[in-house]
């Protein structure tokens, strides 16, 4: 038979690298419509609609102000506790939402995945975009609160430090996305691990310095905090916005390295195992 140039080929093994960037780009319209679909569908037939994007973190913060500040009395480094917690919760929500939703990729999309082809990575990327959108709104709200406290003179503010927030946000999202992808593959195969997922999220929330500063942690158990790649990110995020205590450069490098590893292995694993999972879903 004469040799031909084929546009595509389906082989038994999915390549680690997945589809080419060019092909991924050709599904841009689908990506955007998935984001739109998720965003719109979440607020159909609801009482408050998108207001929840702000209401949810506000209610969470209110709870934690009550528990950590008023009852237990953890120090907030001289910052008003509402602002201190809101800053932490905003970043935490970005992490938690991306991680959890990405981990549910196969379970949520199993009916669609079994009926139509598109690069599977499109689904988690749409989650990523959607959460950045939501995070943007929350960040805007945070900025308003920040401005209020700045004007009333309750906090100091260094405009240059704000730039630090950008890489911190990206690294946080990267870690969430990477670990989410790994968990998507694992939970796709073993459904009983969803319980573990919930546990991890809850545990992580208290191990991360959201409601306290790293410096408050007793030396004896500080290694736990140091081991957590998210610790330095929360510390730095607060540093950039509230001018509180900073974190070591080395711990930030540790976070970045962790993100690179987990992101690469997440994407590779997802690409490689995604099609195989279709047999067992």
């Amino acid at each position, binding site marked *: 038979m004469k040799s031909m140039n084929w546009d595509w080929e*389906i082989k038994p093994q999915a390549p680690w690298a997945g589809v080419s960037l060019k092909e991924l780009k050709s599904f841009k319209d689908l990506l955007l*419509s998935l984001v739109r679909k998720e965003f719109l569908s979440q607020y159909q037939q609801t009482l408050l609609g998108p207001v929840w994007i702000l209401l949810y973190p506000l209610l969470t913060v209110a709870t934690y102000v009550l528990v950590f500040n008023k009852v237990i009395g953890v120090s907030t480094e001289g910052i008003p506790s509402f602002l201190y917690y809101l800053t932490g919760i905003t970043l935490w929500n970005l992490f938690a939402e991306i991680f959890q939703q990405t981990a549910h990729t196969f379970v949520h999309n199993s009916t*669609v995945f079994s009926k*139509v*082809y598109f690069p599977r990575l499109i689904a988690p990327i749409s989650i990523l975009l959607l959460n950045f959108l939501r995070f943007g709104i929350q960040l805007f709200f945070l900025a308003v609160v920040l401005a209020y406290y700045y004007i009333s003179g309750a906090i100091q503010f260094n405009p240059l430090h704000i730039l630090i927030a950008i890489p911190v946000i990206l690294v946080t999202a990267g870690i969430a996305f990477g670990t989410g992808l790994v968990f998507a593959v694992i939970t796709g195969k*073993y459904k*009983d691990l969803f319980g573990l997922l919930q546990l991890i999220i809850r545990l992580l929330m208290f191990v991360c310095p959201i409601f306290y500063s790293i410096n408050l942690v007793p030396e004896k158990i500080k290694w736990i905090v140091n081991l957590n790649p998210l610790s330095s990110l929360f510390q730095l995020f607060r540093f950039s916005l509230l001018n509180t205590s900073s974190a070591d450069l080395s711990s930030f490098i540790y976070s970045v390295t962790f993100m690179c590893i987990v992101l690469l292995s997440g994407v590779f694993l997802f690409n490689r195992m995604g099609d195989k999972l279709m047999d067992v879903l």
Partner: protein
Amino acid sequence: MSEIILQAENVSKSYNLGSIDSGSLRQELQLFWQSKILKRETDFFKDINKNNPKKLFWALKDVNLEIKRGETWGIIGGNGAGKSTFLKILSRIIRPTSGSVRGQGRLSSLLEVGTGFHQELTGRENIFINGNMLGMKRSEIQKKFDEIVDFSGVGEFLDTPVKRYSSGMYVRLAFAVAAHLEPDILIVDEVLAVGDVEFQKKCLGKMKEASSEHGRTVIFVSHNLQSIQSLCSKALWLEKGRSVAAGEAKTVINSYLGTQQKKAWKHEYDSMALAPGNEHIKVLKVELVPNLSNPMDQVDIRTELTVKFKFYNLNNDIHLTASVLLFGSAGECIFNVPSKAGVCDAGMFEAECTIPGNFLNDGSYFICLYFARNGTEELYCYNECLIFDVADYREDAEFYYKWWGMVRPDFKLSLNKVA
């Protein structure tokens, strides 16, 4: 226009039988511990041993197919023949266990109507979501938006959430989007089985148009051989995961029907002990013989059918009637033809009954043999001894809908203009 646009080479797909693949992590760790650490050969371990072919189920085995640009292929075969698996591999949803598929251009698959539809969102939103999922660009959808809405006929409900649609409207909207796809290769699973007759006709017409006028390649799976025959130029016949025949649609469909029919059309028993019956009657042979010029041709409404049977009467000196009863697929009796009653002695009897051509409607039928004494007293009833299908045949192939009526006799209807 004879270049090969899609090529499947030795495509095989196997599944592990049993629940091993969907087990919990605990099971798998246990298995790992037993087999790798303790080096113990458990029965459980043997099950997942890939070298053990018994536990491996081949949904597809070495299927080869070459499709040229502009051809329309129908895939036929019984349940579990691997048709859907093959389509899923071609549409890149699952990967083959071995072999490969190569292709050119854009491929869209329609394995379900309304993939990605969100119940809470409006018809308008869903047109875009579904269109994007099937591989259309946003600009393409915008360009064809009015056409899609027109085709679906749900115009006034466009801004209503689709959960409030009737199921018919839902399907029509979904298919309207699909009908406006413009891929190089279109893969369609049995999705036409939904919607009303009028709409089905519209859809089949649209698919025909896609292949004949726009030169698109269509791969189509259906149980309805009639629609495959009218739509497809080529056909692939799968049986138990293997390709039995591939080529001209008419030839493949006819030989498929030929073997399908042979299986259920003759029962013969060598010994009295094995033959169905009781202490009064033993049926030794029952057979359906279609009067076809070519034995490989399919039985359609024009075909004359003869029921032949042979039985042993064990009673002396009785008034015996043997009847042939024909039932439709829903169990309704179409006719009951008895033999003339007469006094019979014990012995072997042969009987024959011919159903003329141009009498039965298309559909599935089964035949019962009924033996009675003195007209009413049942001796034996051989239920569902022959099962057969009658295919449709129409001079005017434009109509796809089911012909009404239990029978379809060729009575003459005269039409005269009187005023």
